[in-house]
């Protein structure tokens, strides 16, 4: 039996941000995660945008947290070495009907206190974004909409929390929570049982199932699938800003934007489904993205796609972001309805949750020696020639390029494996250093990554997984 003060359930963006915020205090924290790696489910398959909250429903917790989070990212990303760019978003009106909606959208932005949203003429927008549909009548400019590396964001939260004493139990599914006299007592996982004072449910897609374990199932999670395309860095038609559609009553629509690493991203669809596991893409979904994005960017070339994926937003029924605590269940915090704005609001959710608990009597002192900075994995491809030369001299493995599409070296892969909360699977390597994220999708580097993982972890290639248990990359030796 492990003992701790706080168990955080789920190592997605919200769980890791909450854990990191807690690690600023003299309090013992364990994060439990069913997957083999930090990074969550929804947190690793989304549009990778840090929103401003301009379009949130005003006067809601979601609006409050998203609007608050956006300005916090400059410092966070500088401290934790997270790729982040403030490229801004444009919201072009193509039809007269859309043009008439602009004032209401701007009005809503102001009600959300996003005061830097402004009108642009069609000509101004075309100058900013030459690939835009020339029929554009005008639109809005939302300068603080930003792009981030969502994988690194969550890894950075987790690594920084770990550096400050938070323990992580991976491959550990929560199977039960016990209470005693209206207080949280233990959390049972598939690997360990933990005695704890607090439980913070950050289980995203599965937060309803966790809530049910303590009899607080007042809602259901509805998985809303979003399918995406990633296009080659060389694709002929590119945009420099996040190009957002004007939302309809039914959907927020499909966008196009650059990723932080220079690919183009288009999507997502929005499809409610019963399954929390089905993350498949469909021919229909992908076709609808093509059709819709062409309204905004007519020359978008989806044939230049290098990968397609889908993510599940943990929507809530009844809808809305909720922070819940109950008088009759001391020590239990429930977060639900963390959906497409979840990546953004993870940061402010961390501070919000801790503040709420402190206000309710948690007796936690600030740490004197909180480690504020995290150093990411050095990116060989982004160094100058002189820096690259220096790197190879210090460590010859920087001279061994493994992933040729993204120019990722063996030294970077070894760092990904051996750093705290290091990579144990092919996908975990990919999310840390981008080996296999290029146009050949691991065709060349995949076989080498399997060999490196097996060598470094001291196991057979047959034991190397793509991600979770059962996803073995290969079956054994031929000889």
């Amino acid at each position, binding site marked *: 039996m492990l003992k701790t003060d706080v168990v955080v359930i789920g190592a997605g963006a919200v769980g890791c941000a909450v854990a990191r915020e807690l690690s600023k205090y003299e309090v013992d924290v364990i994060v439990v995660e069913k997957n083999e790696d930090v990074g969550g489910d929804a947190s690793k398959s989304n549009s990778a945008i840090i929103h401003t909250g301009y379009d949130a429903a005003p006067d809601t917790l979601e609006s409050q947290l998203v609007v608050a989070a956006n300005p916090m990212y400059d410092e966070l990303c500088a401290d934790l070495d997270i790729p982040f760019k403030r490229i801004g978003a444009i919201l072009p009106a193509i039809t007269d009907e859309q043009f008439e909606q602009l004032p209401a959208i701007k009005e809503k932005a102001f009600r959300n206190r996003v005061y830097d949203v402004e009108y642009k003429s069609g000509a101004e927008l075309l100058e900013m974004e030459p690939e835009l549909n020339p029929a554009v009548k005008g639109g809005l400019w939302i300068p603080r909409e930003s792009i981030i590396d969502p994988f690194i964001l969550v890894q950075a939260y987790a690594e920084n929390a770990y550096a400050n004493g938070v323990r992580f139990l991976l491959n550990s599914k929560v199977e039960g929570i016990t209470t005693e006299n209206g207080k949280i007592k233990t959390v049972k996982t598939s690997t360990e049982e933990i005695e704890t004072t607090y439980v913070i449910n950050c289980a995203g897609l599965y937060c309803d199932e966790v809530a049910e374990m303590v009899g607080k199932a007042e809602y259901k999670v509805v998985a809303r699938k979003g399918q995406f395309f990633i296009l080659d860095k060389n694709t002929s038609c590119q945009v420099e800003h996040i190009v957002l559609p004007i939302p309809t009553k039914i959907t927020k629509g499909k966008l196009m934007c650059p990723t932080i690493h220079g690919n183009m991203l288009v999507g997502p669809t929005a499809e409610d489904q019963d399954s929390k596991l089905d993350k*498949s893409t*469909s*021919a229909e979904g*992908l076709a609808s993205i093509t059709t819709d994005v062409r309204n905004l960017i007519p020359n978008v070339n989806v044939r230049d*796609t290098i*990968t397609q*994926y889908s993510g599940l937003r943990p929507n809530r029924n009844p809808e809305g972001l909720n922070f819940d605590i109950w008088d009759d269940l001391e020590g239990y915090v429930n977060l639900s309805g963390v959906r497409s704005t979840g990546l953004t609001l993870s940061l402010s959710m961390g501070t919000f949750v801790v503040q709420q608990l402190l206000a309710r009597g948690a007796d936690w002192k600030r740490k004197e020696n909180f480690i504020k900075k995290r150093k990411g994995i050095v990116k060989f491809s982004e160094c100058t020639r002189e820096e690259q030369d220096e790197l190879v001299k210090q460590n010859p493995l920087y001279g061994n390029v493994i992933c040729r599409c993204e120019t990722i070296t063996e030294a970077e892969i070894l760092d990904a494996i051996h750093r705290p909360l290091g990579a144990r699977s092919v996908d975990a390597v990919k999310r840390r250093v981008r080996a296999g994220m290029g146009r050949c999708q691991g*065709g060349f580097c995949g076989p080498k990554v399997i060999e490196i993982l097996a060598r470094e972890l001291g196991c057979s290639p047959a034991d190397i*997984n*793509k991600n979770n248990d059962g996803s073995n990359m290969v079956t054994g030796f031929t000889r």
Partner: protein
Amino acid sequence: MYNVNCDVAIIGGGPAGLAAAIAAKKEGAEKVLVLERDNAPGGILQQCIHPGFGLTRFKAELTGPEYYGRFVDEAKEVGVEYMLDTMVLEVCNETNEVVCTSSRYGLTCVKAKSIVLAMGCRERTRAGIMVPGTRPAGVYTAGAAQRLVNRQNIMVGKKVVILGSGDIGMIMARRMTLEGAQVVMVVELMDYLAGLTRNRVQCLDDFGIPLKLAHTITRIEGNERVTGVWVAPVDDKKQPIADKAEFVECDTVLFSVGLLPENELTRKAGIAIDPVTNGPAVNQYMQTSAPSVFACGNVVHVNDLVDNVSEESERAGKYAARYAMGKLDGEKKIVKCVTGRNVRYLCPQTIEANEVDGKVTLYFRVLQPEENVRLVARCGDTQLAKCKEFRVNPGEMCHLTVATKDIDGDVTVDVVKED
């Protein structure tokens, strides 16, 4: 930064780079340096352990290692030099510098008099043809699986479906079968075989592996490892007929759905690319739009026979050496090669027609399979060369040789239906 000087720098030590290096050396270039990212020369042939190479060139049926082994031996004899385990990061055609990196020397700047691009190609992926479904383990390109099985001693799966009836797909079907896997079927989108009939007989029919022509994989299933695929027939527009899709159980899917010239370095160097071949446009000397840069092999256009690669690479090496020695100048009369009826692309894309007694072989692929045809090269109405073929198809490269003295304008190639 480490600095190296040479006459001809060759990027890539596969069959193209090796043949170019030997030819450059034989032509008189003093220092010929091959930059190779692998730990040994040979390129993709290192994993092509099957026979079928060298029938034209050596009149013998060699395996990949035997074929490139002969070139490695010759390269050693003539004094070709290598930098192995070396990745080229950048080619600058204005300064003739190649920046590369290796564990041994760190960042290295190779200053050359001429450069030969011989980087080969890569495989189109599952994502490249947008096959929907989940993203489990067990989805490989045929070449990646071939590397694992033939070089790394690693078996990729037990029950396999292969998409694509090209030679690599079929050869992997046999290879996996010999290694104890069950190959459930080979699925081909077109209504004809993409590779050689001989491979169908020896790789599929010999082992009773079904070939599903005019079918495709419409969806991949499985959350962790592949559990199966949906295979559906396609209509005459190549669109899957969804309600006829059938579930096929398997744990592995291999994609053998085409090769793409690997031209990231070429593009970054600002060298003109032919949009059809996706490779640099070249003249008969295999010279690109940057006069000091030559290119050969699959980086120019994807070949079906390595024998052809060796031939055109020797040309690239020979003229790169001449360029390095200042012997490839003079007045230029450049004509274009134009695709006519049922011709998808032509290589070379231009011809320098000022050579008095020169001959140029035009390599090309057809758009559609056709029977009883005549291949014709012409300048306007003047016929330069012709050849009868019983059958042509997009999978097999055609060629015609013309004399440069006959060329007085753009050269058009047609595939004409015989009456």
